């Protein structure tokens, strides 16, 4: 798009009027907050007083002395990578069966149900299902004589549980993205592959997967970004517990801000997380694109 090119056909001030809410919003709720956030990260501020400039001290504290921060970064990675590594292939697999099934409207509605549900309800619904003693899963296991795991009170299982619930929450949406991509592949390509004697496995590897690679990159990277920054589910489901085992960085900085009232340090933590997400997304994007060029 050429930026210095005025439409000779007219318009005049009209386009500016149309975008004026967008510009006002971008200033007040995007540019200013970002700048304010960066400023705050160089200060110490309990909102009852005024911010005092401390330079890079907050970053230094978080990166070199705060074990809880590093633990939260580790938890964030486990959560995000677990979500992507298990969730994306699962959605792709579901898309394969969904896109060649009948009764799509019904399947779609069912698989999309979690996406329509507020995150508090999702957290509590699963708390009920996973309850150590009264939950339906451990009751069912109990009937067979097995003792079910402590889904939400054991530190390792709690992380497993929140990852599984996150996958459950997002599977339907990603399934629909993948199935849209699968349906967009021209059936003549499949016919050609068949004529050339390509078997099913070969067709999958050399035709289908390359054709849906843009969707694959899109889903992988958006899922990764979502997983790295998502904390509403964990807040409502485990509150970051037991003993910090599911405390991800976004939740850690949120609690730091609104419970400990350390606005400066929390802003610094949020910026560090943002930079980590940005760098890793870029690396992923490069890697996935690279493989595309080679195939």
């Amino acid at each position: 798009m050429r930026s210095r090119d005025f439409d000779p056909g007219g318009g005049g001030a009209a386009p500016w009027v149309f975008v004026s809410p967008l510009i006002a919003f971008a200033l007040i709720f995007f540019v200013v907050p970002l700048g304010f956030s960066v400023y705050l990260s160089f200060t110490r501020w309990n909102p009852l007083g005024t911010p005092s400039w401390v330079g890079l001290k907050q970053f230094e504290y978080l990166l070199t002395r705060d074990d809880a921060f590093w633990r939260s970064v580790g938890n964030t990675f486990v959560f995000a990578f677990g979500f992507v590594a298990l969730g994306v292939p699962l959605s792709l697999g579901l898309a394969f069966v969904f896109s060649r099934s009948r009764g799509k409207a019904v399947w779609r509605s069912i698989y999309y149900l979690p996406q329509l549900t507020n995150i508090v309800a999702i957290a509590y619904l699963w708390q009920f299902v996973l309850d150590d003693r009264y939950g339906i899963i451990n009751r069912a296991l109990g009937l067979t004589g097995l003792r079910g795991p402590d889904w939400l009170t054991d530190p390792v299982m709690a992380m497993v549980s929140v990852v599984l619930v996150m996958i459950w929450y997002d599977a339907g949406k990603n399934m629909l993205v993948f199935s849209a991509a699968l349906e967009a592949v021209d059936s003549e390509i499949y016919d050609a592959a068949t004529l050339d004697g390509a078997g099913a496995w070969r067709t999958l590897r050399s035709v289908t997967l390359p054709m849906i690679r843009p969707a694959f990159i899109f889903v992988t990277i958006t899922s990764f970004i979502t997983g790295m920054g998502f904390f509403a589910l964990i807040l409502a489901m485990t509150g970051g517990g037991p003993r910090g085992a599911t405390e991800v960085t976004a939740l850690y900085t949120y609690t730091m801000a609104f419970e400990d009232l350390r606005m400066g340090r929390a802003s610094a933590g949020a910026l560090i997380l943002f930079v980590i997400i940005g760098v890793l997304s870029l690396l992923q994007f490069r890697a996935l694109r690279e493989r595309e060029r080679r195939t």
Partner: protein
Amino acid sequence: MTTVDDVTHPARTGPATRVAAPRPRWRRHAGSVVKYAVLALGAALMILPFADMFVGALRGPADVYANPPRYLPSDPQWGVYARVFRELPMTTWFANSVIVTCIITACQVATSTMAGYALAKYRFAGASPLFRLVVGAQMFPFFLFIIPIFFILRFAPLMGGNDIAGQGGAGLLGTYAALCLPFVVTWYGVFLMRQFFLGIPDDLLEAARLDGASEYRIFRSIMLPLVKPAIATLTLFSFVYHWNEFIWTMTVTRAAPDLQTLPVGIYLLSGAFQTLDQKSLQQAALAVSILPVIVVFLMLQRLFVASNFASGVK
């Protein structure tokens, strides 16, 4: 299902099938059974927590205090749905959810159609930088904005008892504005509407201009009706998202119970649901918080074609 379909679709067949010839009927049959078995199993898992909630809501004290506690309610307590409205501030939460969701959705549709139209149909100096902003801003995660926006609203000059420097009062915190303002524009919505307006031929615009229609008239009377399907899609997405929005609303209404929405109210009251027979009350409240979205979704579902999902992919 045609034979060609069966042969060419790879997901059905295992790695062992390398021949292009049609498979025997029993194998095709088996593939079909596996396909629907997988879909049904997944669907059962999707529904399980919801079913668990509806069953749980109907349990009475006799069931939860039985030894061992009964899973299926012996005497379904349908009155629990009246109780949630009697014993919890459900009416306030519900009204707030409706008010906030409707305001935000209306604002988002208005700002997205206007901005999307300008970015698609006018060549003006702002078009290119603004479009780049709209695409780029989507990359910024929401957690980055919680702290700064909270204080921008808190220190809004001349609002809520504040002086010109933003000191002295509570600012916009504790008002509906605090819940709605940070969401009146959606980058995704602007992007979506721009893509739809791009698909509308310029000739229409030129013809209307030759007829002497003003730019605003053209937008309102000619362009808007043409993008109704996109408006419906955006309405649905906005409604679902903001009915369910939790973190922001909780942050600004923690101290303002009159402004809490359904998810926030239920979350902040969770301490009150500790005893076993109050759990059914909580489950009923959750059911009430979920149902309106499902109703809206089922009403608008035909608009909700899979292609909408693909728009962000390319």
